[in-house]
């Protein structure tokens, strides 16, 4: 190569060099832009949900002096439990409200006055009295949850500048609440109800405990079923199965299964578990079974990938010192693949946690007030609960929906944190 040629080459390379650097710069810019965009969307989503949902964690309470006289309750002086349960607590609450504002006389005004206190407040009172029947005949002070509209007013959700006809919360109600506020008889407290109650038709009485427990039970079933089955399948397919047409078919089908729309699993669950095996509807056990079906392929695929990524030199080493095939797998390969398998499992479980469609098919969408305590109790799960609340018109449920989403997200983050912790714990260098 002559000196001339060399110089030409240098120039050529230099001229193309700038183009190449420019291209790299452009690519970096696009990447950065993409990340910024996705982060923005995420931030918007989180901020909206948080702003919407935060108020739901607070509940407004009203202080009332309750006089429990047997007459109003409609019981005798020493009622039995049954009578206590059926007693007219609503009447006593109404009486004490009327006592606060004695000048309310009109029927319509009375009705509005009664609406200040939640419809569910009677159950709070009932619980208190049933715990301590000696209260009957006494007068005592109690904090009771306010009604949905009142709660909305206190939170500033009701625009009082609108003409009275156009709003649900009327002028005299505003007046009463302001009076109560001045007397320090209105207070906002942390909303324990939200975490302690099941579903309710009244937003101020509705809680997520029922669906949270439902989710936990369902996920427990899913985990206990899908993890061992999936890991065993993955180990067999990866380490022991002969490579022939049959295993190829199985492999393809597992991959296809992972791509099947989840509602199909719901239909399958309905047909097999409920109609054929006669398992109870809306039960976590059926939900868990269906979600296991859905999660299995995900875990199998990730477990196989994890097993495959264990370096062959480790297998050689173990075989070389005379370990049997099974010992090689269980002493060396599986522990090394564990972090990967756990990651896949958590991803599968997170998917299952967020799944709604198949559960709708097996009836986990019913309105269930009681907190489930066993696998066969009717239950619902968090995402279904969110779906249900999102459908309801009351203002209080909008907040509850967002709050439930926050709880669901917290649950997910917790599961991921566990995954990260487990991975760290099991991870080893080789």
């Amino acid at each position, binding site marked *: *190569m*002559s000196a001339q*040629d060399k110089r030409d080459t240098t120039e050529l390379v230099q001229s193309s060099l700038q183009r190449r650097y420019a291209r790299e710069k452009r690519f970096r810019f696009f990447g950065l832009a993409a990340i910024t965009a996705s982060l923005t969307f995420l931030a918007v989503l989180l901020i909206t949900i948080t702003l919407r949902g935060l108020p739901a964690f607070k509940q407004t309470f009203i202080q009332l002096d309750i006089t429990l006289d047997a007459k109003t309750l409609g019981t005798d002086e020493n009622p039995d439990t049954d009578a206590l349960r059926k007693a007219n607590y609503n009447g006593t609450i109404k009486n004490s409200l009327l006592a606060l504002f004695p000048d309310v006389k009109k029927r319509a005004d009375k009705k509005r006055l009664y609406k200040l206190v939640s419809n569910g407040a009677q159950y709070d009172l009932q619980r208190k009295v049933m715990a301590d029947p000696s209260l009957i005949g006494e007068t005592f002070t109690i904090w009771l949850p306010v009604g949905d509209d009142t709660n909305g007013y206190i939170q500033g959700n009701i625009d009082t500048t609108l003409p009275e006809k156009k709003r649900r919360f009327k002028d005299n109600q505003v007046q009463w609440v302001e009076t109560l506020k001045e007397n320090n008889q209105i207070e906002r407290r942390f909303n324990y109800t939200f975490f302690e109650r099941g579903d309710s038709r009244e937003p101020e009485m509705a809680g997520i405990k029922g669906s949270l427990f439902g989710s936990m039970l369902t996920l427990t079933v899913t985990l206990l079923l899908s993890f061992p089955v999936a890991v065993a399948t993955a180990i067999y397919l990866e380490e022991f199965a*002969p*490579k022939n047409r049959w295993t190829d078919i199985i492999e393809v089908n597992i991959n296809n299964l992972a791509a099947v729309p989840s509602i199909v699993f719901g239909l399958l669950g309905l047909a097999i578990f409920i109609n054929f095996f006669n398992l109870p509807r809306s039960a976590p056990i059926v939900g868990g079974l269906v979600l296991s079906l859905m999660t299995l392929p995900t875990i199998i695929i990730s477990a196989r990938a994890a097993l495959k990524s264990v*370096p062959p*030199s*480790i*297998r*050689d*080493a*173990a*075989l*070389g*010192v*005379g*370990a*049997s095939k099974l*010992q090689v797998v269980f*002493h*060396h390969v599986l522990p*090394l693949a564990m972090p990967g398998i756990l990651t896949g499992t958590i991803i599968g479980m997170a998917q299952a946690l967020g799944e709604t469609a198949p559960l709708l098919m097996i009836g986990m969408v019913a309105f269930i007030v009681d907190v489930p305590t066993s696998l066969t109790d009717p239950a619902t799960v968090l995402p279904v609960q969110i779906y249900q609340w999102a459908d309801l018109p009351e203002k209080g449920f909008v907040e509850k929906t967002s709050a439930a989403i926050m709880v669901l997200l917290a649950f997910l983050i917790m599961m991921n944190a566990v995954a990260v912790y487990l991975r760290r714990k099991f991870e*080893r*260098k*080789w």
Partner: protein
Amino acid sequence: MNEEVTPLPSLEQDQTSEQTIEEIVASLGETVGEPRVDDPKMSVSNVNVFYAEKQAIFGVDLDIANNEVISMIGPSGCGKSTLLRCLNRMNDTIPICKVTGELMLDGEDIYGKDTDPVLLRARVGMVFQKPNPFPKSIYENVAYGPRLHGLNRNKADLDDIVVNSLKKAGIYNEVKNRLDESGTSLSGGQQQRLCIARTIACSPEVILMDEPCSALDPIATAKIEELIDELRENYAIAIVTHSMQQAARVSQRTAYFHLGKLVEVGDTDTIFTNPSHELTENYITGRFG
């Protein structure tokens, strides 16, 4: 730059376009030198190895003697590693691999019906190309084999085996204060010696080594070679190596393979000063393409 560059003639192309491998192997003729020894530890007779349809080893006869290092050398793909892996049936893990012929360990057929590959691998240990300690503690690495085979009666026994194996592998002094550290925290050469200790711990009779130094620096290599020389006193050793210098340094006998055929075998001294076969001469003098 104006001159046309003439393409270099490709050796491989010429070979495959005009002759099949079988024909070339046939043209190599009989093995030169004496493949047999008195009182062999392992004995290979007329062994052929197939990967599916492709034949990788052609009718090899070879003995491995006690207290001797035999090195197998040859260009890549000459079948030396394949043969080595047949000696403790590591090839069993490859489903398409088929072995014919006779492979004996102390006069027993190792591919016979009565021979268990797991037991065989305890008797015929193997050290691999890449140092591959288990990601466990140094102690556990060495203790794994004996525990597996139940060689120890109690914990003290096991401690003895571990310490002795590490001593024999010449690494004890370097690791005695950190037996509970991970085996992967050691340097490459130490890892390989740990792997040798792990193999020794199963008290094998034969040690197979598949390019044990190819991933190591020269100093680590020298230490391993010295170790191999010491181990010769108690074991029969077969070593596959890409480095003919290494073969010259560590072995007493050398076998040269070409395209799956054992071309020449003999005393290392003779092979490296006066080989009989032209291919051997070309290979060890670096005249191959």
